[in-house]
């Protein structure tokens, strides 16, 4: 997609250790258009957070980008010097993490934190920045923002703190927001408020959002497209409706079946046997093969690459096969 705001090409994230190099993100590619929400789901340890951290340039050493490119509005950002990257972060990319307390300094009033960030990135006076901070707090749904702006983080509840963090991520009007589990620590009622907020911002400001979560319900409500990650790879990526309601990859199918539903009559939930492999023991071929009910010989030897199947991209030999047959018969 040439209109992409963010483009990730063949990204690989590695951790050198004494016993060899661990590959936590292995050759993944995707893009996000302006105003689009890309959901990223998968079990814990799948590599979701590391992908997000690589994009914002916050990989903790010894973790490093070992291969691939990250482009923001067509410009490479993965190889920039630290200072330049710091300017882009905040100005063009905003970050929201699971625990709002990690993003807020408990010793400073929330307003001062927002004002400082605004003035780092935008040429505004103190008074203008303060006005903007109040407007932003209002925009994220904090009532009496003019007074609240002078409160400390501990004076806000969890849901309100997360909204302050969103205001902080938005304050320089970034083009892209990377949100890592932004609602996981929140109750459903607050979760619903935050999701509504993210959707509205996306629509009104044309902001692109990468939304990392393991909650399929949140994805179904919020995302335009979704990427399903497994063991450092993208198993399936496509329009959210197709992936949620008509999953093609056996792993996605397993995930969807495992989610209990209200109104569902099933006595037992579908269950994916076993657990995700450790990074030190990723099986050869398709990483999902020891748990896959449909695995066959080839899956244990060759690694499937994502191929287009309908509207989605799927990394699974079942579909390669179907395509080959089509080619023979057609």
């Amino acid at each position, binding site marked *: 997609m040439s209109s992409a705001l963010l483009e990730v090409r063949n990204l690989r994230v590695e951790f050198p250790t004494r016993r060899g190099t661990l590959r936590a993100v292995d050759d993944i590619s995707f893009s996000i258009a302006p105003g689009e929400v890309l959901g990223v789901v998968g079990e814990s340890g799948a590599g979701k957070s590391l992908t997000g951290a690589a994009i914002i340039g916050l990989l903790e050493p010894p973790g490093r980008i070992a291969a691939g490119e990250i482009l923001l509005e067509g410009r490479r950002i993965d190889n920039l010097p630290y200072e330049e990257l710091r300017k882009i972060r905040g100005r063009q990319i905003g970050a929201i993490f699971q625990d709002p307390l990690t993003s807020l300094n408990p010793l400073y009033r929330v307003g001062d934190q927002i004002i400082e960030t605004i003035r780092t990135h935008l040429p505004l006076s103190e008074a203008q920045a303060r006005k903007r901070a109040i407007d932003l707090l209002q925009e994220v749904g904090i009532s009496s923002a003019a007074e609240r702006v002078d409160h400390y983080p501990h004076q806000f509840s969890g849901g309100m703190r997360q909204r302050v963090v969103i205001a902080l991520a938005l304050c320089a009007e970034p083009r892209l927001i990377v949100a890592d589990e932004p609602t996981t620590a929140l109750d459903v009622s607050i979760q619903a408020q935050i999701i509504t907020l993210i959707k509205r911002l996306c629509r009104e400001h044309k902001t692109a959002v990468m939304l990392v979560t393991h909650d399929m319900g949140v994805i179904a409500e919020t995302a335009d497209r979704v990427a399903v990650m497994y063991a450092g790879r993208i198993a399936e990526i496509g329009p959210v409706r197709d992936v949620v309601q008509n999953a093609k990859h056996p792993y996605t199918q397993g995930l969807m079946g495992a989610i209990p539903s209200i*109104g569902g009559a099933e006595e037992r939930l579908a269950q994916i046997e076993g657990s995700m492999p450790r990074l030190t023991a990723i099986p050869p071929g398709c990483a999902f093969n020891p748990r896959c009910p449909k695995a066959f010989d080839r899956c244990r030897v060759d690694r499937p690459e994502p191929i287009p199947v309908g509207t989605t991209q799927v990394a699974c030999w079942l579909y390669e096969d179907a395509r080959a047959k089509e080619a023979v018969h057609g």
Partner: protein
Amino acid sequence: MAEPARMARAPGPLLRVENLTRYFDVSPPLLNRVFEGKGRLYVRAVDGVSFEIDAGETFSLVGESGCGKSTVARLVVGLYQPTRGTIDFEGVDLGSAKARAANPQMQARMQMIFQDPYASLNPRWRVGDIIAEPIRFRRILSGRAAIAERVGALLRQVGLGANDAERYPHEFSGGQRQRISIARALAGEPEFLVCDEPTSALDVSVQAQILNLMKDLQRRLGLTYLFISHNLAVVYHVSSKVGVMYLGRLVEWSETKTLFARPRHPYTRMLLDAIPDLAMSGRARTPVAGEVPSPLNPPSGCSFHPRCPWANERCKSERPEAQRVPGGGAVACHAVEEGRLPEGPAVAPPAIA
């Protein structure tokens, strides 16, 4: 494997709690109170909760963070003592530390499973010793070989292997550790398990394995569960009855199907409405304004009134008591009692998660 023999049970519910109440004293130190002229300060974590659980069923408590679910769980198993109220287990009152001490055989029949599979297992003990501990403590079996055999059987029962007894907790994943917690809870041969968010720290795929296991064990061993979760879809899947808590009070309970198909209390409707829509029916959500008020200073009258679209003057001054409703269950809401509430936005099957 041999299932533990069950005692013949008296008729009536297995557990009945009435007016269960627990306040926590969070007052500033005495000196500050004297000099700053401040009074004592209490958190009303649980405030007059009543419910019953029949043998073999699963009763769930749901509600937002801080509403008192875990406190109820801890009161029921005796980790906290109630400020007021009774906890009646098969006709024996366990509502005080003294009563619990006098009835060790009753206490032995209940066990608790916690949310965090990382914190709840002693990291320095081998899994075998962790699971054997209740067996030794209650002298259920004696002799090294007999205990080892039982531990192996318990491990197999929860889907692990007998030789996992030799390993340490850190060698297991979160889901496997939760299985170990369940094996340990079963080792004491309980018939009543209190499960406080047993799958909340786990991925959906692992959650499905644990929920299936818990249902299998319930069927095979005739277990009764008090199940705590903030995930309504999980609660729908596992429970026979559901109670909804708000700020320390039980605002509604009923049969699971009824509660989800015909929620009555405005708070229950709000919770159901807030669930993300996996079926993508395009259902318009009305995100509720406001948040849970502080339990230090709960609103007057009905504590839900600041967030309730149907609140009126009576709601602000008079606290609604739980009233039985036709078809089973109870609701504590003036508007329901007065019949001035429209039939709720029912969450109708099939499949909304």
